[in-house]
Every structure is written in structure tokens, then in C-alpha cells.
């Protein structure tokens, strides 16, 4: 067929240009927020000095230590974790064609938490040293990550198995996720019941998701996993658009729907598992951010996926900055603030509808 006599309509270019502008604005906002987040805290550092320190100028040894050892890794962890959880959420929502898909609602966070508790209590990979921000020391975080990941996969496998059953609707899958979440929560409680005081404290403290936990090596590991998984999701953005149009339409367009669904769930579970096992459970990011972005940018995954990555990074960095300031000098784990903010924000988004 020869259909090469068309012209790209200006209206369409304007339409896509607006979405690209929104994503670029998000990136600029993220940079501003990053500098602000580093500048505020118990010791205030002017934003300009933050920038100068970041580009390598040695202004003050104290600022140097605060920025490079405490605030920058924490802020970057918030960005990476927010981006990772949000992109995992948007992928799950697309793969399952269900707006309630997220690592939190599908029980994957609970499975990861159980895996981490199992690792800490049964395998002895975590101990509690003292009170304070670095109370938890995971002796071998990679084993904790692997165990959390294994339990994430088990939760994912159960959801996919149920989805294979005849007549299983997306609603059934979400309900299955809730059931799986409850099951793993029960398992975590069971382990906690038999744990000693130190282990129990370690597990309970672990579940308060906190971006202040990660050091540079863990941050780099999470960043590499998040970048790789995000690239995978971006590469598949056309496939997700096709799946949105219905499984049969997608298959007619050459999309191997079952494989995309399976691999997508495995990749998003892996990403969630890595972040959750390093930082603890941080809810609502994976659920709320895709919806926030949809309302700003629409459902086209070419723009929705990068947009959600930026929104997730922005939201968790903003929440973590607020969590550090809200009860200063005490630092609130970001998961607690997210839980308080997530539900009302989600309801607000549902009521507001699309702006497009």
C-alpha cells in the first residue's frame, strides 16, 4: 500500500509538543527541588552554595560532609525510589489494564516485606544496633533483596495464575492481590510472634520505608536497576498502548500479549522488590503517580512512562523533604507521610477528572 502523500498536521505536533514541554518542565522542577531539598535541614545551606559544592568547589568542610554524605544520597535515593516505584506502578496498571495496579495494592509490597522479615528473622541478615537514623544494619542487604524478590515473584506468580483462569476479571486480580497481601501480612506477623526483641524491632523499623537508609553503593545499585527497568518499559510503550486497545487488537498488531504481560510483571516486581528491600515499604507512590501523570499528560505510554518517572521522583523527593522538616529536629520516615498524603491525594484526583 502506498500512503506516503500525507503531511504531519500542525495540531498533532502542537499536541505532542505540549506533552514534551510538560516532561521537560518536570525535569527542571525536579532539579530545583533537589537543590532545595539539599539546602534545608538542621544546618541550612544556601542553594547557591549547594550548587557550588555539587560542581566541586570546596566552600566548607562541614557543608561538604553534609551534602555528599547525608543529603545528596538521601535526595537521590528519594528520586530513584520514587521514579522506580512509580514506573513499576504504571507498568502494572497497563499490563493488567487495571487502574488499581501497583506494587502496594497487588500485595507485592507485603510479599517483599515478608521476604525481608524472613531474611532478618530466619536467615539472620539484619540486626538493630541503636536508636537513630541508622538503627537497622542489614548485614547482607543483597540476601535480603534476593529473598524479598523471591517472595515478590511468588506473589506475582499467584496473580498471573489467577489471571489465566477462565473468566478472571481485572477486579478478581486486584482482589487476589489484596488476599495475597493479607496472606503475607499474616506470615510477617507469624514470624514476628516468634522473633526476639532485637529482631522484632528490626523488622518493625524496617517496614517504615525510609529513603535515608541507602548508602552510595545501594543507591547506585537501585539507580542501575531503575534505569534498566525504565528503559525496558519505555521500549515497550507502544506495546502497552496496543494492550490498552484490547488484547485482540494488540495481538493483531503483532504484540505477544502474554509474554509482554508476564515479563512486564516480572520486571516491575523485581524493580519494586529491589527498592522495597533496601528502603522498606513505601506505599501509594506506585498507585498515585501514574494517575497524577495521566491527568496531566494523557494515557499515551510514550509520554505517560517518562512523565510518571518524573512525577514519582518529584513526589517522593517533596514528601521526603517535608518529612525531614515537618517535625524537625526529628526526621519522619517518608513512608508515614506518604501514607497520610496518598489516600486524600488519590481521592482528590478521582474527583477532579481529566484536564488533558
Amino acid at each position: 500500500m502506498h500512503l506516503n502523500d500525507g503531511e504531519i498536521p500542525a495540531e498533532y505536533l502542537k499536541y505532542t509538543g505540549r506533552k514534551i514541554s510538560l516532561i521537560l518542565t518536570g525535569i527542571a522542577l525536579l532539579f530545583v527541588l533537589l537543590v532545595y531539598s539539599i539546602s534545608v535541614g538542621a544546618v541550612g545551606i544556601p542553594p547557591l552554595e549547594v550548587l557550588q559544592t555539587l560542581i566541586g568547589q570546596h566552600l566548607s568542610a562541614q557543608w561538604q560532609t553534609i551534602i555528599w554524605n547525608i543529603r545528596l544520597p538521601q535526595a537521590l535515593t528519594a528520586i530513584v525510589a520514587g521514579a522506580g516505584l512509580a514506573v513499576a506502578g504504571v507498568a502494572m496498571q497497563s499490563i493488567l489494564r487495571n487502574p488499581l495496579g501497583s506494587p502496594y495494592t497487588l500485595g507485592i509490597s507485603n510479599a517483599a516485606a515478608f521476604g525481608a522479615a524472613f531474611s532478618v528473622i530466619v536467615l539472620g541478615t539484619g540486626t538493630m544496633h541503636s536508636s537513630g537514623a541508622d538503627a537497622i544494619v542489614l548485614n547482607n542487604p543483597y540476601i535480603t533483596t534476593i529473598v524479598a524478590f523471591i517472595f515478590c515473584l511468588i506473589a506475582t506468580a499467584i496473580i498471573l495464575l489467577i489471571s489465566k483462569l477462565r473468566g478472571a476479571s481485572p477486579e478478581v486480580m486486584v482482589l487476589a492481590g489484596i488476599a495475597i497481601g493479607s496472606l503475607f501480612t499474616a506470615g510477617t506477623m507469624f514470624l514476628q510472634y516468634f522473633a526476639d526483641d532485637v529482631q522484632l524491632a528490626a523488622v518493625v523499623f524496617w517496614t517504615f520505608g525510609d529513603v535515608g537508609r541507602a548508602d552510595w553503593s545501594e543507591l547506585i545499585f537501585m539507580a542501575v536497576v531503575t534505569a534498566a527497568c525504565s528503559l525496558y518499559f519505555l521500549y515497550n510503550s507502544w506495546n502497552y498502548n496496543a494492550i490498552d486497545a484490547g488484547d485482540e487488537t494488540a495481538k493483531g498488531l503483532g504484540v505477544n500479549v502474554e509474554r509482554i504481560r508476564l515479563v512486564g510483571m516480572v520486571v516491575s516486581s523485581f524493580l519494586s522488590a529491589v527498592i522495597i528491600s533496601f528502603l522498606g515499604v513505601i506505599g501509594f507512590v506506585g498507585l498515585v503517580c501514574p494517575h497524577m501523570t495521566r491527568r496531566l499528560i494523557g494515557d499515551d505510554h510514550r509520554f505517560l512512562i517518562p512523565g510518571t518517572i518524573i512525577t514519582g521522583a518529584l513526589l517522593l523527593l517533596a514528601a521526603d523533604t517535608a518529612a525531614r522538616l515537618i517535625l524537625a529536629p526529628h526526621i519522619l520516615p517518608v513512608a508515614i507521610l506518604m501514607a497520610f498524603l496518598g489516600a486524600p491525594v488519590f481521592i482528590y484526583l478521582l474527583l477532579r477528572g481529566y484536564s488533558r
Partner: protein
Amino acid sequence: MILTINGVEFQYNSRKVLEDISFAVRPNEVLTILGPNGVGKTTLLKCINRIHHPKAGSILVENEDIMKVSLPEVAKKVGYVPQHCEKGRLTAYDAILLGRRPHITWNTSEKDLKMVEAVIRRLHMQDLAMRYIDEMSGGELQKISIARAIVQEPKLLLLDEPTSSLDLKNQQEILRIVCEVVRTHKVSAVMTMHDINTALRFSDRFLLLKDNVIFATGGPEIITPETIYEVYDVEVEVEMLKSGPVVVPIC
């Protein structure tokens, strides 16, 4: 031949749906599959498009066995318009652009965008282009599905009840577009349809299915009161009008 089917069989669990189906479709030909509900018309289209895997037999598109090539390669040769179009939240332009999926790796090219625009103009859908498809009627969605299948640049178009949710005017328009695409490009179309009179007007050949097997195949001459009674268990008369044969049920 664009499509050659030999001895295709398909069953859902233990229930046989298609048995020993063999036929061929020539270039620039519109073939319509007729038959009562549940006889396997849609299943046959899904087998041709590899959505279903036949239990036996072979399906060749341009002499290539579709079971032996990758799904994107099948999609480059076969465009499918399903019976029910699901409403996503894309603009019509993007929903049609989706038809370029088999040809896209990372992102669309200028050629893809120009092709969509050309099809939009050819199908007189300029007013719909930037509207969101979840705000559209069934008929408008059907047109978008057909436009999407056209930008796939297939050799074979499969249309499952393409006029099921269209009013009379849109039925005529859509089928005229399908016929135009078939006549002006080296493309063939296989449709399923319930309206025999519409099928008579827009098809070159017919395939009548009964009890999961081919009952008759041929040109308009096979649409007789006898074959229709055999296939549908309904008494009809076939009247000859200036525009061609018309099937009239006897009340």
C-alpha cells in the same frame, strides 16, 4: 494467492469449532464468510491472524506459513479489525498510529505520521483526528479500527462484522472504503457478516459455513433460497434488482 488455507481444524477444549477448512483468496478480492451464530466465522478469522492456533492444517499468506513467522511479521501482512473495539484514552490520530506498531522499533518516523494523515484524509476523518476515542460513538470507533488496519500496510485485511455497530450510511461508507482499498492496492479482504444483502453488494465471493464445515463457496450465484435454507433454516426468496440480487425472507 494472497491467502491459502488447507485443512484447518480448531477446537475449544473438546468442542470442535472448525473442521477441514480449505479455501484460497486471490489478490484484489473481497471474500465474505456467512453462516449462523456460533458456526466459527470469528474463530476462523482469529486462526488466520494467529490469535488462535489451529489444531491442524496450514495457513499461508503470500505463500508463507504464518505459524512459522514471528507475530510482528504476521502483523505486517495481516490487518485485523475485531468485532468489538475497546475504548482507550488516546486521540484518534494516536489510535490509528498504533497500526504502525509492527513497523516501529523505538519510536515513530516521519513516514509513519504522514501515512496516518493520508489515511485520515482518505477516510474523511479530519474532524475526528484530535478527538479522544473514549468520547466517540461505536461507528466512529469502527472507522478508527479500519483506518488502523489500513496503516498497517497489510496484504490481507480481516474484518469481523465491520458494520455491526454502524448506521446505514456509515455501513455503506465503510464498506466502500474497504472495497476501494482492495481495488486500488494489492490487498485482499476477508469479512464476516450477518447481513447477506450487504455482503452481496460488496463481496466478490462467499464462503458459507454450516456445522463447522464449509457448506458452499463461490460467487453470488451460490446465494440461493436453497443454500440459505440449508445454512440458516430460513425460507427466503432471491429477487433480482437492477443493483443485483436481494435476499427477502418469506414471512
